């Protein structure tokens, strides 16, 4: 845990210090979005204790693939990546004594995170007003699908489909075609990172005023911020956008798409905004006759004839290797990059140079690859460890933070209160 470092006296100017050191978070978050909130705060130095229980395992702990192919609640590779940074305390919240312990932890914490539906925390006995009784300046962060109140407050969605309520899904697809589903919950990590920002704003408010608060982050509203450009076209012109492939969202660049390259399912992305970039692309192609047509000389012309332009360009890119072509186009100043598949990520020189993915040792003795700090800071370098084993921070939380005696702690473990 990073938190151990925060309890150690550190000289004020140590460059490795993390900016949220000293902040403690109790995270009731589960599955993906809530744990990403905890992860981001933890990468930034907070001590994050995820509350969970063997009594009801989080389903992401049981998701294959497993380390070394052996199933087990502490061996899910995706769980370890998505939850990295969070600590874990095991509490069977069905038991009153366990709930009391959770309250004690909250009394010693700054922030409580949850991603249940509206009302669930109240039913569990952890409503905001109750939390304030033990910690008057507590920051409670909630992130239900459509917010804590309103006609759709109890809407059922999956992370994957939540985007349908924002208008975003209506924009995804091939030009003029039907919406194509985005095949995973983009909104989960997005809203999770957004949530970390929301919590730090509330920490700043607490620092300014001494006040805590209950943050209501509607994932729908957070994700809908991404459709602002199309939303403005609706507001200003009554225009309702639809799928347009990879074309520029506001028709302000052409060419602007991905184009086939040599090999199976290899593609290159090329985006041309300015006339200078267009001239550079034409030059890189060896000034072919078609590219010198008057119709393509201006951005307006390129946008108006974009289908023909893309077809021509695609015929040229198809003869080339994606990486070589990207490098060659970049030499000319053209914004071009290979389209990576998942298998390329570990080999890509950019991600390799930035340690985007890191191999880490798991306490159970295997090595696994997860992602590290997905943003780089010049002074503060996060400690990256795999997602927690269930209950790995029990002793720290209950013995050190709450100060329970050895005997009492053992008893709670034996009676499966701490479980």
């Amino acid at each position, binding site marked *: 845990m990073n938190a151990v470092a925060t309890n150690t006296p550190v000289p004020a100017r140590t460059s490795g*210090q993390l900016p949220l050191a000293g902040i403690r978070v109790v995270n009731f978050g589960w599955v993906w979005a809530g744990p990403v909130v905890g992860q981001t705060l933890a990468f930034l130095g907070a001590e994050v204790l995820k509350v969970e229980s063997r009594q009801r395992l989080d389903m992401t702990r049981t998701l294959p693939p497993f380390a070394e192919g052996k199933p087990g609640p502490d061996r899910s590779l995706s769980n370890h990546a998505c939850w990295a940074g969070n600590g874990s305390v095991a509490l069977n919240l069905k038991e009153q004594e366990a709930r009391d312990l959770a309250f004690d932890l909250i009394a010693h914490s700054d922030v409580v995170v949850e991603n249940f539906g509206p009302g669930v925390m109240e039913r569990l006995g952890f409503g905001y007003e109750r939390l304030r009784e033990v910690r008057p300046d507590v920051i409670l962060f909630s992130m239900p699908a459509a917010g804590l109140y309103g006609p759709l407050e109890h809407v059922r969605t999956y992370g994957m489909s939540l985007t349908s309520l924002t208008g975003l899904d209506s924009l995804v697809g091939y030009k003029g075609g039907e919406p194509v589903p985005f095949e995973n919950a983009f909104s989960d990590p997005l809203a999770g990172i957004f949530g970390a920002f929301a919590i730090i704003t509330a920490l700043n408010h607490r620092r*300014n005023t001494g006040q805590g608060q209950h943050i209501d982050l509607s994932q729908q509203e957070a994700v809908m911020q991404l459709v602002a450009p199309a939303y403005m076209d609706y507001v200003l012109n009554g225009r309702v956008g639809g799928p347009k492939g990879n074309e520029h969202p506001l028709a302000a660049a052409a060419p602007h798409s991905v184009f086939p390259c040599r090999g199976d399912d290899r593609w290159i992305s090329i*985006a041309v905004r300015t006339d200078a970039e267009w001239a550079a692309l034409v030059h890189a192609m060896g000034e072919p006759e078609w590219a010198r047509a008057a119709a393509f000389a201006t951005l307006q012309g390129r946008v108006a004839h974009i289908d023909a332009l893309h077809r021509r360009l695609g015929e040229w890119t198809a003869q080339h290797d994606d990486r070589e072509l990207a490098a060659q186009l970049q030499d000319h100043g053209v914004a071009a990059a290979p389209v990576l598949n998942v298998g390329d990520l570990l080999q890509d020189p950019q991600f390799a140079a930035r340690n985007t993915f890191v191999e880490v040792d798991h306490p159970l003795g295997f090595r696994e690859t997860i992602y590290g700090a997905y943003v780089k800071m010049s002074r503060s370098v996060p400690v990256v460890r795999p997602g927690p084993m269930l209950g790995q921070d029990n002793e720290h939380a209950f013995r050190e933070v709450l100060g329970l005696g050895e005997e009492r702690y053992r008893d709670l473990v034996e009676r499966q209160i701490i479980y």
Partner: protein
Amino acid sequence: MNHAQGRGAEPSGAGRAGALTGIKVVDFGQMVSAPYCAKLFSDYGAEVVKVEPPHGDAARSIGPFPGDLPHREKSGLYFVNNTNKRGITCDVASTEGRELFLRLLRWADVLVENNLPRQMQAWGLTYPQLQQVNPGLVVISITPFGQTGPYAGWNGYDLNAFHLSGASSRYCGRPGEMPLEQGTFSADYYGAIAGAAWGLAAVYGRDLVGGGQQVDVSCAEAIAASFVGGQNIGLVAQEGRFDKRTGVGMPLGAPATIVPCKDGHVWMLALERGQWEGLCKVMGDPEWASLEIFNDMYVRAQNADIMYSFIQEWTAGHTKMEIMEKCQAAGCPITAVFTIAEAAEQPHLAARDYFVDIEHPDLGRVRNLGAPFKLPASPGGPVRPAPRLGQHNAEVYGELLGLGSGELASLRAGGII
């Protein structure tokens, strides 16, 4: 709205101080990523000064414009991403302009920028140079690829970043056809939000860590790691196997995809037994649904073509809202695929005051997306319109940098501001 009072100390919501009151930000960005990141600061109460080149943020020339008539004060993109900011112009390529910009950075806690690293270098505004001017400054740099690594010198836009992340190849598009971006600036927004979280933490903990620092956001990396990597990197590292897009919401369980209906589309989801039974009930318990080949989500996925054709026979006769309401009531997580218009007109969002009307000197009264999250004790969201080009030159250069009207006039004459 009194623009002269436009600063962080002013209440940013319903008459209470914003959460980020006291934080001073310079936004030296264009288009989406840095401006949106800085907007997250300004909409929650920070004092944000936007610095534009004399010809303005590129978003001003991009629109969407009312009636598609270009006008630098009427861009919807500029309007939506620059609320609550004061705006000045400065030609940092000139010696005098650069000096003014650095003086402004001495005042600031945060600089948000999204210029290509080579451009910042050409201006003499690299992080080490800025650090010398103000060691406490937090510099949030948001670029497609990042400040380091072999692509740091590359030209790039949102499109290039998104497709480098693996997200499109894995999750977006039909097999054999090109992978897709999401039809908006997804990588820019993702990077902006990540930059806001990490950058705000860097300001919050600045004394603790001993000073300012550069927060280096690669939009491609943020998505490749926290979205694509989270679900896929363990498998590819351990077994060398990986998956690609299928064009179907969920290939291994069904129903779980977008299907057409009478007036558009719905996100059809009924995986668990109870959900499937709920859907069947809403469909009137058709005989086909009791066939063994539709027994659970896995066998339904194996027989997806037949199942989806049956389902679509039913959805074709019903509207998206009808389907959503009935299925939700029956315990199914099925939702309407809202068009932009439907999303914009949702009673739910209206009931939550998600939309705010803003008076703009050139656009008139315009509706805008409101705060992305609600902070009851310190409400956020857009209140003041995006600044006109150079609107606050006199105010900002005068009050913050102490320039007199004579100096301002000569800077104007010299094309610096």
